[in-house]
């Protein structure tokens, strides 16, 4: 039994075993270094997994050597290998980034807990992605959510509203997860299995009330988790008051993983013979995606708080992902997968830039950004480049996303959606432009609450942030990893779902 054959379980086993150890380590650097080490190891394992899947096709790993459908199966194909790579990659960047930010924003006594919770959160997200067992999805989802509630609440040192934000998220998240479990129960009742691959076989030809209800519960439950408009109300506060490093991590990964679950259930578990799914696409995901794009973007326009503005923008961006998959075409699904990846890059970088500002200016209000280009030019440009990416300017990943999405919209005949997509990007232009203008053209506050010294963020923060910013550019001109892989993944998913390839 070599390590290589156990590779698929490593991204789960390593961090979850490492997490409790952080509590035993002395306070200070040790827990941080320990957590960094394990996120990097996990990232390495995910890279190895990705290469394996890329070269030799899907992997099925039987946990405890119990064959599916009885045992729990980890099933990795291109779609989730990409998401695994994304989640672990972002974690590998956020973890070293977090140190200085956490020093400032989190109570010192809690820092070992913080890093432990971060590791658990990552494990949960990876677990949701990697598993091929529907109930396992729920378990991992709650593992990640519970640690996220705790992480958000740690923002209370700076702002006590973090506590109420975490509480609201807890209530909404638990309702969402429970809805998801109800849906699973109904599917289980109809099929007698919980393995996704097996579920999909057993569901062929089943189109009755029970399966429909199960589908609806799963959709609503996941909708809550991924902050689908109008079930997004927990998100802005949670993102705003969480410690900055946590926001950077969960904004880049948590909702993406939930979108991935939706994709997995819609395309791998259910199939297109199931007429209900078409209705869900046309009457739920498409309109809600569009509404989210506009509603949330519009609200973002009027935020005085940059972090909250970006949070609303995240809700809007989730709209793009839902819109893409609602076309139910290979192009649309590709666009969704590409945008999952790309949006993580841009939002990760943006929230990291905000974290740098919080470190120096002590606030994420837009007033703290006044004249930032004179105080923190390196951070300013990181924010501007990732902001341009958010708008969808060429040579950035945002443009690639938009291109795929527009192409999917036009190819699917939803030309009106194409125009709505660009219209919503224009709102993004307005709110990013507003911050950019404040940073570039206003004079920095000399005194008062927002005054700050001319001091850049430390290198431990700048380097991870700029890696993400450069990734925004790199993947904006080379789409071998994102576009091609996503296309192949989408084709495989569509084949499984019985749609036209």
């Amino acid at each position, binding site marked *: 039994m070599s390590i290589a054959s156990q590779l698929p379980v490593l991204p789960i086993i390593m961090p979850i075993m490492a997490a409790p150890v952080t509590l035993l380590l002395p306070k200070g650097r040790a827990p941080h270094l320990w957590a960094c080490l394990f996120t990097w190891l996990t990232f390495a394992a995910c890279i190895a997994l990705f290469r394996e899947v890329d070269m030799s096709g899907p992997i099925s790993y039987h946990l405890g050597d119990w064959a599916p459908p009885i045992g729990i199966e980890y099933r990795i194909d291109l779609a989730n290998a990409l998401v695994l790579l994304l989640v672990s990659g972002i974690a590998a960047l956020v973890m070293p980034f977090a140190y200085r930010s956490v020093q400032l924003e989190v109570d010192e006594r809690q820092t070992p807990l913080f890093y432990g919770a971060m590791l658990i959160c990552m494990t949960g997200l990876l677990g949701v992605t990697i598993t091929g067992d529907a109930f396992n999805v729920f378990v991992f989802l709650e593992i990640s959510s519970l640690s996220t509630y705790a992480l958000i609440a740690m923002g209370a040192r700076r702002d006590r509203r973090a506590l109420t934000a975490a509480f609201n998220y807890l209530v909404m998240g638990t309702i969402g997860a429970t809805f998801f479990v109800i849906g699973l129960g109904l599917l289980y009742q109809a099929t007698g299995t919980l393995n996704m691959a097996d579920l999909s076989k057993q569901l062929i030809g089943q189109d009755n009330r029970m399966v429909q209800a199960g589908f609806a519960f799963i959709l609503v439950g996941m909708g809550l988790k991924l902050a689908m408009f109008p079930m997004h109300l927990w998100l802005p506060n949670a993102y705003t008051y969480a410690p900055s490093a946590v926001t950077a991590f969960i904004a880049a990964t948590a909702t993406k993983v939930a979108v991935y679950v939706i994709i997995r259930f819609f395309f791998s578990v259910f199939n297109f013979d199931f007429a209900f799914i078409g209705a869900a696409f046309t009457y739920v995901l498409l309109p809600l995606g569009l509404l989210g794009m506009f509603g949330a973007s519009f609200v973002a326009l009027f935020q005085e708080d940059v972090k909250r503005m970006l949070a609303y923008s995240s809700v809007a961006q989730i709209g793009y992902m839902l819109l893409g998959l609602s076309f139910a075409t290979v192009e649309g699904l590709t666009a969704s997968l590409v945008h999952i990846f790309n949006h993580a890059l841009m939002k990760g970088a943006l929230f990291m830039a905000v974290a740098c500002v919080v470190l120096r200016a002590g606030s994420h209000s837009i007033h703290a950004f006044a004249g930032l280009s004179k105080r923190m030019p390196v951070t300013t440009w990181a924010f501007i480049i990732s902001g*341009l990416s958010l*708008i*969808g*300017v*060429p*040579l950035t990943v945002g*443009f*690639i996303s*938009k*291109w*795929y999405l*527009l*192409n999917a919209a*036009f*190819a699917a005949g939803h*030309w009106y959606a*194409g*125009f709505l997509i*660009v*219209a919503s*990007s*224009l709102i993004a*232009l*307005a709110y990013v*432009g507003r911050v950019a*203008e404040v940073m*570039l*053209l206003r004079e920095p506050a000399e005194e008062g609450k927002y005054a700050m010294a001319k001091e850049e963020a430390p290198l431990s923060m700048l380097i991870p942030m700029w890696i993400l910013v450069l990734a925004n550019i790199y993947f904006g*001109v*080379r*789409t071998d990893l994102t*576009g*091609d892989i996503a*296309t192949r993944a989408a084709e495989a998913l569509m084949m499984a779902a019985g749609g036209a390839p």
Partner: protein
Amino acid sequence: MISASLAIPLSLALPLVGCIAIWLLDKHPNLREAATLITGAILLVLALTIFGAVGGGEQPEHVLFEVIDGLPIAFKAEPLGAMFGLIASGLWIVNSVYSIGYMRGHGEEHQTRFFMSFAVAISAAMGVAYAANLFTLFIFYEVLTLSTFPLVTHYGDDKARNGGRIYLGVLMATSIGLLLPAIVWTYAITGTTEFTEGGIMAAHAEAVGPIAGVLLGLYAFGIGKAALMPAHPWLPNAMVAPTPVSAFLHAVAVVKAGVFSILKVAVYVFGIDFLRDTGASVPFMWIAAGSILLASAIAMHKDNLKARLAYSTVSQLSYVTLGAMLATSMGVMGGAMQIAAHALGKMTLFMCAGAIYVAHHKSLVSEMRGLGRVMPFTFGAFFLGAMSIIGLPPMAGSWPKFFLMLGAADAGQLAIIAVLMVSSILNVIYLLSIPVQAFYMNPAEEGAKPQGAEGALIQWGALKEAPILCVAPPLFTATGAFLLFFFADPLYKYLSPLIGGQ
């Protein structure tokens, strides 16, 4: 000599290298300016290489890499692009010389940033000129928009901020909101964005037919840099920038990139024949005609010289759009020649405006009465430039008008000929009046009466010209506009592949 196909990527990379050199030489203004000029000179050589190769019937190509499957960043020089590249790179040197004079004469701040942005902008303009497909064109189009933003907001005050906001807002809104969907739509229907002789659409006439008008509209307004009304407000607002920016970018590089794109789309994406057969372009022809007249009318009311010139530019740009929308070969030819002729003419006018401002700090037309007596060279150049814009022989601007009229006659649109005539009359009124007043009228304020012999047209003894670096460039471009009049035939032959000729 390097090969033309290598010259293409080099001419994109070179200004960027220059940009870095400028940045490194921040502390040494003289060396920094030398870096700009040397870069400009090499760039001109490269542009000439490409221009010559294209003239010899070659179509040098260079594929950088594929971004998305089937969507490469690729370059291919054809006559129109080679001409635009040559104009942009040639006038960049002229403008750099002028900028040095202007910026130093003014003691401006942030000169390094200014020249760096300029270098990036010229690189983007080259990318637009040599783009082989819509995808590449769009990328460099957006880079051009963004790189010129720091130039527009150079002064950093409230006015600059507002101007910059409108500048970026309109250009980005039109390009992302209309042009990008148009390109993707084209791609979704035809599976390519490659500029093809005879047009991409012709092969997919059935699919495109019903929406041809819609698509053309998306392109016409989406290419906001062409300033077709009502997508024009960015242009007058861009005038908050220092004059060299207005002179080069907002008379040459940026706006010409816009109308150049319109021509490219009309010729290589839709195809003239396709446009004529479907009649899709007729509404936009009228919009362009309306834009010509309306912008001229607004220009007449502007007392600020730069604002007047800006609206004149809006009007003149619509000539090119009009030429493309006439969907006749003569119309396209007129539009293409207008790019060259207007670039020389309008740049002259802007540089003169800047020279006047440097020498006398005057920006209102009403203040310039009598000024010609002490600034004869500047106003002389202005006079020639104005002649060219109006379309009076022996200046280059007369040829585009001639071809446009021929094109309108071919298309059977006699009303368009009337529009062109009325527009010329309006041009005479609002442009020629300026040098005429400057030379023949007495200054508005009594105290400011220039010394010297009363009634003499030019007071040679009391000249108060701008620095030589600000005066020589407009004289140079004015001469260029004059010479181009006599080289219309070679230019016509050079551009004739555009309309299917040999």
